């Protein structure tokens, strides 16, 4: 998971339990996808 300097979050990798936050449980995501839910919330930390 990546947090950019613009506070955008991109996630990729294993997603069997929905841990990528993309809204589904597609088993894995090979291309980074933006989590659009947080466009109005500035995220400062991902853990």
């Amino acid at each position, binding site marked *: 998971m990546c947090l950019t300097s613009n506070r955008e979050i991109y996630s990729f990798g294993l997603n069997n339990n929905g*841990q990528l*936050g993309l*809204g589904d449980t597609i088993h894995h995501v090979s291309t980074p996808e933006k989590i659009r839910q947080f466009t109005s919330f500035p995220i400062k*930390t*991902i853990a």
Partner: protein
Amino acid sequence: MTLFLTSNSDLFACGWDGYSSHVSSGSPEINNLNEKLNIRAYKSMKYQESTKPFYPSKIDTERLFGQKFLTLTEVYCSDQSIIFQVGASKLYWKPLTASKTTVRASQTMPNFFSPSKCNKNAPVHIKQLDKEITNVLCARYQIFVTANEKPETKSI
């Protein structure tokens, strides 16, 4: 599990929370767990799979901690535990796997935890580390903390 902390101290979470390997099946254990972690989206996960419920859900931190913190400054997590940093110098620990972590933590850090404390749902305040926290690394069963001693306050 993935945690997201906003600059307003709002906490969101998604994924598997570590208590059960059957999160996406909507088993009774999960419903029980949902109450503990207060991640509401998990409650009806079984019935919402087709409508994509796996977006990060906001956690009611006031309910989780039993008190309101205005300054949840950092979160750290491994597959076994979550560390919450409140303000500059307070750390709270919450195990993610029910019994094994509890036992192991109480054995390896007896000054910090007792089994009875660990079994509570609310995160445990690590009072011994009430210092100015500079960095935290949360690995599987280990927590590494670097901290400064609190500067002395002098009255003029």
